[in-house]
């Protein structure tokens, strides 16, 4: 079976088998709705205006004149999550901030994408061992593209965003628009950050710890 390339398909479309009026020639494009729609979608991704740490500075530099994010249709940064398509998590995610990030993520309309920019957002980075640091934003919200670097250079951010564009291009409209709104419960700040989905596990863990302590106390006492 020979692989049909895009070019073959295109050439096939040139000869429909009936006459085309001259005024229409060269003015009609036949494509799938999917491709047309995704072409529009991927070239008008609006990021959320939301900087966390060092990487945000490089994000701003990417939006500025030398690197010019506008070439990719992404210069429209929106401070409101309701108007944003992609959340660029630019920097260290702390335990204190993660409930708000999850809330912002929940407020974004579908289809939504998350880019973890830099080592911290991807996996904790140099601050991973810190007591107030979430080791990777993907512990709480799904991530589409990870960009390594500390901080990633503007070129690296652009590359990551181009990867996101490729991902969008491959998506099918059916999957995108029929996907269900998934609400992620906001973590709660207790003695440490608590994911409500983990509550049974937390109780099991702390009770076991208490028993161990009492057991030790009984032995030494």
């Amino acid at each position, binding site marked *: 079976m020979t692989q049909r390339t895009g070019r073959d398909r295109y050439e096939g479309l040139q000869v429909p088998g009936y006459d085309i009026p001259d005024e229409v020639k060269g003015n009609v494009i036949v494509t799938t709705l999917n491709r047309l729609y995704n072409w529009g979608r991927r070239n008008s991704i609006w990021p959320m205006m939301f900087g*966390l740490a060092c990487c945000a500075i490089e994000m701003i530099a990417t939006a*500025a004149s030398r690197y010019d994010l506008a070439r990719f249709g992404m210069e429209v940064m929106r*401070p409101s999550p309701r108007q944003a398509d992609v959340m660029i998590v630019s920097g260290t995610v702390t335990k*204190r901030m993660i409930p708000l990030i999850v809330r912002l993520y929940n407020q974004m309309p579908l289809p939504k994408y998350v880019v973890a920019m830099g080592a911290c957002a991807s996996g*904790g980075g140099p601050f991973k061992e810190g007591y107030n640091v979430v*080791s990777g934003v993907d512990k709480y919200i799904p991530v589409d593209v990870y960009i390594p670097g500390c901080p990633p250079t503007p070129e690296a951010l652009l590359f990551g965003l181009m990867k996101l564009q490729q991902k969008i291009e491959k998506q099918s409209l059916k999957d995108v628009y029929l996907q269900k709104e998934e609400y992620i419960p906001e973590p709660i700040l207790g003695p*440490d950050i608590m994911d409500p989905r983990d509550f049974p596990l937390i109780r099991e863990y702390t009770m076991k710890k208490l028993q161990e302590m009492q057991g030790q106390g009984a032995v030494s006492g």
Partner: protein
Amino acid sequence: MTTLVTVPDIETRFAGVITPDTRKGYQGYIVEAEHVRAFAKALRDDYGYDYLASLTGVDYLPEGKMEVVYHVYKSTGGPGLVFKVQVPRENPVVPSIVDIYPGANFQEREAWDLLGIRFEGHPNLRRILLWEGFWGHPLRKDWREPYFEEEGKPFSSRWPHGKHFHHEDKNPFGKNVDYPPGFDPYTWEPDTADEILYQAVLQRSEIRDDLRTERVVVNLGPQHPSTHGVFRMIVTLDGETIIGLEPVMGYLHRNHEKIGERNTWIMNIPYTDRLDYITAMANNFGYVLAVEQLMGVKPPERAEYIRVIMAELTRIVNHLWAIGFLLNDLGAFFTPALYAIEERELILDVFEATTGSRMMNNYFRFGGVARDIPEDAWDKLVQLVTDRLPRKVDELDRYLTNSELIQSRTIGVGVLTAEEAIAYSTSGPVLRASGVPYDIRRADPYSIYDRFDFDVAVRYHGDVYDRYLIRIDEMRQSLRILQQAVKQIEQEAPRGAPILAGKPQYQVRVPPGESYGRVEAPKGELGFYVVSTGKPNPWRYHVRAPSFVNLTALEAMCRGHKIADVVTILGSIDIVLGEVDR
């Protein structure tokens, strides 16, 4: 270089109450806890030490003591004085000095938050970087983080055997969390809700008697385009006038100090880059100065010049950024910032060619710098400082300074008087715009700043406009220093001269003792208080961050202004959250 002094007169006056600190490598006085207020008051009123630079705590676990360390200086310049209060570890209570030095406010709260030292008489002793209800005080030496591995690096799992593992696999939750024994999330009641905070702010706000309107609490941030990161403010309004403001921070608390105490000395250099991530080189400078004081090494001539050149370029980068984004906050959305970022990129090119990184340079070493500036980058640098940057600073000045819109939004807004500026321990452009000509490069010279001819920029109105103007002035002065430095370095220490004292080392030997290294970072006084016990890791690594302390004055600046001015005033302080929250 900072040499802390002792005052003989004060020893006789407070005989029996204070004793000189005789531990090896330590300086200053140890004051009895119950007399610290009288001592501080005498220092401020009778001896002229009116500027509290740094207040922090140290946990001396083996001795069973908590120590609070105060660094005070004279706002007229000269060396400072350090005094300490020692209290037992089990119940550390120290009288608060907030009413004597209002600049101690946030710093005492931080010491309570991270070390659990209770300051008696503090008006608002709540946690500041962590949240109310957090389990434990993390900077205590016996407190362990969930991903705890060993007391100090290098961890034996990583080096020399390289059998590293993922902490996620060992934690039952697969996350960076731990909970106290017996804790039940189902019956747990939150200690603090935002409503409690809002009520507290509302109660503290003054009531104006002439016209009573309903007071409204407005929350700004932490995700807000004008807060320069993840900063949050709770503002009480009477109509549109601000009657109370409470900054809430800690949304970027990355545990620099805890990680810094696990790291070896040299490992902390790249971490300092990430404090104030716009001015990485200046942060390196402060830290290596503090450690060099302990080690007693002196960098060679060429390294000193390169350090000054890099620090001053960093200052220009910072002020360009600050001006661009102040204008952003004023509503000139992004156009001035684009002009500023364009110049910043050119300076970053020089940084990248020299250090390999645009922002996180990791360039300074104890006793020198990591590598020399390459020749082509040097040519670019000389061209920048002699030709392009002076023109561009003039251009910014020409476009912005006389703009009627900017003047009407900024003149007379956010006024901080000279007395208030000193009392709140503000530093850098905020202090100098209020008419206090205090610049550490002059007041307490370090490195080779005494060789250059430059003026300390000062403005006298203390409003947002002056804080904008002073940044233009300072860029011009920095360019003056740079122009002299690029000339002098060719004569004094041409290319090929050593740039590092001694051999490059992975593990430096730091003799026991304490040291406070401070530099005039672009945002103000950046101080590093380090304590060494002679081990490979610092016992205490504290960062006195200028943005954090400058925020103490925010409420005083904002009160009485309109809600729209808060954004401008915050922009004029020029905070970076990496440094505020650390």
